[in-house]
């Protein structure tokens, strides 16, 4: 009896021990683990991963509103409907295997109004262009094309398409609707964007083989640019060189930049560097008794000069360098040779995404006894012509090869036609959105990969802001609102860069696992071992008890 009572008490005691061990384990799991988890957790705000992924596909739709205006006597006979009517043409531009871009040309066909008719009754195409300008849709990206009768004397002989300074063009009718449509489509592409200009804007995503040689020449889209004109005078002992850069900038460069101010902020400055030499020694050519720089040595020219140019410590915008090099007396005259060995007529070359260099030879004095130093006044018109051409080239504004019946009006003193600005905006908007998507995707990947990074609320809000702006920019592109789309894409770039470069992302980055375990083990090991051992014991005993009754039977 006493033995049975003792056994019962023993059993009760053992059950109590079990319960105590189980409650320890339960407290450790229910209270300890969450507490440890909460106190050591890095704060990571939620990010719109799905939206970022969606942006990565770049589902672009670019809509170009085009008004086709028929002058009396120019309406083709085979029109499908009576004027006015609408028509949408779509075209696919494939960038890579995953991405393709749809361009929609929203054409409105209508006949001229009385005012437009009057404006078309002038002698030359230039006058017509000027007179038509106030009658056009002035919003960015919207094009107006006037179809004039085949016999019209507005366009010169042999020219069937005239592109004006603004957003209008004159097209000679003839050849039925199908021929007119191909011509209009060609014209629209010239005045808005082509497959190659879009591919250049998305050059990071296009497979290497498909890009043209010029695609990587353009400057990356940025919120601002710094333009620096540098006069290099390696031989101040023999040449005292003066350039009236202030006047030249205000006269030739500023009008172009005023026009481009919609695209980015520009700042212009200039400097004179003495004793700055090129990195290569030019070859002496006996025949012409001049010095030659061959095309293959040009890549080595820039590096030693670049060290002297000075960094733009005060801003983060990319710098465009234009160097005017006055060769030293012992190396003049100096000419640049192209690949075929012929001298380059402008005596200048450009370097993609960097700037341009022009060699300016000083005329040898009439008498060799003339005392040194020679005083040289640089002919700024000649220099600025070259630099402006290089500037246009670097911004991707160079005019493409066109069929001979196309006539492009020269932009005149403004340096830039309105439709060229549109071209730039189309390309930059697409590039900005692609940049945002790249930035956000790599940020998302980085955050996904490294769990230690803290994501603060303000970083997250910047990411949300960037995604929202990029989406709205795309929506506006699809509606054909180029200006607002560009503004939204700029905001998206700003926010995404701010999120990506936020210093708070780096705070906890260096927290290696071995140190973590070194700190945890002294506490967690002695606490966890008894709990685990007693749990194991309980499990073993329960199993044995389950076996015992079967033994008894």
């Amino acid at each position, binding site marked *: 009896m006493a033995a049975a009572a003792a056994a019962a008490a023993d059993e009760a005691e053992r059950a109590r021990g079990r319960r105590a061990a189980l409650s320890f384990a339960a407290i450790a799991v229910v209270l300890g683990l969450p507490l440890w988890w909460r106190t050591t957790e890095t704060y990571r705000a939620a990010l719109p991963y799905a939206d970022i992924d969606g942006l990565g596909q770049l589902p672009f739709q670019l809509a170009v509103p085009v008004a086709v205006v028929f002058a009396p006597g120019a309406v083709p006979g085979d029109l499908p409907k009576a004027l006015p009517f609408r028509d949408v043409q779509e075209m696919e531009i494939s960038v890579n295997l995953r991405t393709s871009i749809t361009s929609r040309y929203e054409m409105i066909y209508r006949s001229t109004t009385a005012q437009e008719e009057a404006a078309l009754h002038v002698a030359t195409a230039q006058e017509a262009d000027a007179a038509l300008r106030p009658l056009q849709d002035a919003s960015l990206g919207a094009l107006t094309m006037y179809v004039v009768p085949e016999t019209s004397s507005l366009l010169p002989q042999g020219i069937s398409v005239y592109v004006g300074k603004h957003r209008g063009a004159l097209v000679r009718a003839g050849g039925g609707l199908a021929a007119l449509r191909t011509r209009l489509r060609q014209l629209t592409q010239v005045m808005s964007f082509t497959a190659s200009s879009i591919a250049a804007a998305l050059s990071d995503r296009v497979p290497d083989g498909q890009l043209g040689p010029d695609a990587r020449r353009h400057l990356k889209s940025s919120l601002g640019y710094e333009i620096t004109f540098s006069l290099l005078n390696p031989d*101040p002992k023999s040449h005292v060189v003066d350039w009236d850069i202030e006047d030249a900038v205000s006269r030739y460069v500023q009008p172009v930049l005023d026009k481009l101010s919609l695209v980015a902020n520009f700042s212009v*400055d*200039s400097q*004179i560097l003495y004793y700055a030499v090129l990195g290569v020694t030019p070859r002496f050519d006996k025949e012409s008794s001049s010095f030659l720089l061959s095309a293959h040595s040009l890549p080595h020219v820039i590096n030693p000069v670049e060290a002297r140019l000075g960094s733009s410590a005060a801003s983060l915008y990319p710098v465009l360098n234009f160097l005017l090099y006055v060769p030293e007396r012992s190396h003049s005259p100096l000419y640049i040779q192209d690949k075929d060995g012929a001298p380059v007529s402008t005596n200048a070359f450009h370097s993609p995404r960097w700037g341009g260099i022009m060699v300016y030879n000083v005329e040898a004095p009439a008498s060799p006894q003339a005392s040194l130093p020679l005083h040289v006044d640089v002919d700024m018109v000649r220099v600025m012509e070259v630099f402006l051409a290089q500037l246009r080239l670097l911004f991707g504004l160079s005019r493409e090869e066109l069929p001979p019946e196309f006539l492009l009006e020269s932009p005149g003193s403004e340096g830039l036609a309105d439709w060229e600005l549109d071209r730039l905006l189309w390309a930059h908007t697409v590039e900005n959105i692609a940049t945002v998507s790249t930035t956000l995707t790599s940020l998302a990947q980085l955050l996904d990969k490294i769990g230690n990074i803290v994501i603060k609320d303000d970083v997250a809000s910047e990411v949300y802001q960037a995604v929202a702006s990029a989406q709205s920019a795309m929506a506006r592109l699809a509606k054909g609102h180029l200006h607002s789309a560009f503004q939204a894409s700029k905001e998206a770039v700003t926010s995404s860069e701010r999120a990506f470069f936020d210093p708070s992302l780096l705070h906890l980055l260096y927290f290696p696992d071995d140190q973590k375990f070194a700190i945890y083990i002294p506490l967690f090991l002695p606490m966890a071992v008894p709990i685990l051992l007693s749990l194991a014991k309980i499990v073993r005993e329960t199993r044995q008890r389950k076996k015992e009754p079967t033994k008894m039977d």
Partner: protein
Amino acid sequence: MAAAAAALLLLLAAAGPGRAVPGRARRDALREELLLSPLPNGDVAAAFQFRTRWDADLPRGAVSHYRLFPKALGRLVAALGVQELHLALTQGFWRTRTWGQPPLQAPAGAELWVWFQPTVTDVDKAWKELSNILSGIFCASLNFIDSTNTVTPTASFKPLGLANGTDHHLLRYAVLPREVVCTENLTPWKKLLPCGSKAGLAVLLKAERLFHSSYHSQAVHIRPICRDASCLAVSWELRQTLTVVFDTFSSGQGKKDWSLFKMFSRTLTDACPLASQSKVYVDISPKNKEKELLEVTPAPASVYEAIVQGEKRTYAVYDLLSPSLFNTSRSLNVQLKWKRPKNHLAQPATPVSSPLARYVSGYGLQTGEISTLIYNTHPYRAFPVILLETVPWYLRLYVHTLTIITKGKENKPSYIHYQPAQDRRRPHLLEMLIQLPANSVTKITIQFERALLKWTEYTPDPNHGFYVSSSVLSALVPSVIAMKAVDVEQSPLFTSLFPSSDGSSYFVRLYTEPLLVNLPTPDFSMPYNVICLTCTVVAVCYGSFYNLLTRTFHVEEPSRGGLAKRLANIIRKFRGVPPL
């Protein structure tokens, strides 16, 4: 016809290098200058000065076309609204005791002080940005300048150039005593010169010679100055100065003779073609009131006499722009020979007393005392000095222990500005205006307590000690000899950096040695030891508690017990005690 040709020739001759070109007047000018002065102990100090003056309104941001003025600095001044900028990078310490008065002293390490324009709204932000950009330009660790080592002195640093107001809230001053100056700081400094190191005096600036010296200090000063005497318009001045001291005496086998080639391993061949003035000055003033004992070759074309820092001095002048200089030889190698035999040199030179000294005293790692000694060697004039002390927050100063004693009596400062430190936010700033009686020594002491830092705040080598930046002494020292007021544009550069108020006194700014203070340094494995110890204590408590609660207790059947119990019972039986 002949007359016309002659006129043309004259015109051509006038249009020499760097001179105004007919047609458009140059708006900027460069002057370069090298001052060589033998020091009392036989060392030689070489002070280079390059001064670019630009008649343009720089800070509006409207000017963006640079010629001689470096674009990097110009843009900085324009972008951040800088009124005046003074940056000095120094390696070594100017030993006043053996070298005499410095031409332009700077504290060891990096020193930066900047006056901002009144239009700058957030001075602290501009200061932070400025120091970061400068650290990029000069490859120096100026980005370590933050609020813990920046002060705003009220009296010590006045604008050296034109200034409308002197509201000291626009001033920031910081010293990094730990900064090491080397080639990577010299290269960007040389790049700011219009001629680089290709021509002119700058060809002598070879890094391997310059840093093989006892003292090296390079500086950049930007300030607005009057364009002309009427001072209606402002010009901007950039002065780049570089001072080196070569110990030719010890490296030249005990001879005091030196030459340009021996010091720089180069000679001068031409002037910078852009410079409007390029001169070498050699200090040949007679020492110890004796007749001249030294001889310079080649013979100088002219001699310049001036009163510099209260002493009458004579300089031999070599004008690199004068065509006659390079007529006889192609290069200029200035040499100086001492005529007197050696035994004269053994005789000690007149002891030049050190005007300043500073040290830390006390023992243990808890408290200490900073003492500063200021000497006034002027025979009969007393004059006031301003002393600026900047002490990091981790030395907690006790201001009530501040004592100033001159000639055994307490000297009460006529002005005291004290800004206490805030832990981890700003340093102590103590400025005092002290009257120094003639021929006296003044001792200033203040006690401090060493603070404990957080373990992440220690430098990588904490047992090396912590630097306390030099204290600064600014004074208008009365001159023994009356000086004439001279035109700044005409006088040599080495006399014209500090504006002189009148002829009777001259301005000096002296720096003490930086101090090295040991702080209580913990064992850096301590945090981990603490973690381990606490965890062990917790684990032990937890373990026994756990054991107590989960152990099952059996009622033990009484048994006959083991061997020990039986033995005990046998012993108990013998003793007559009941068994266990």
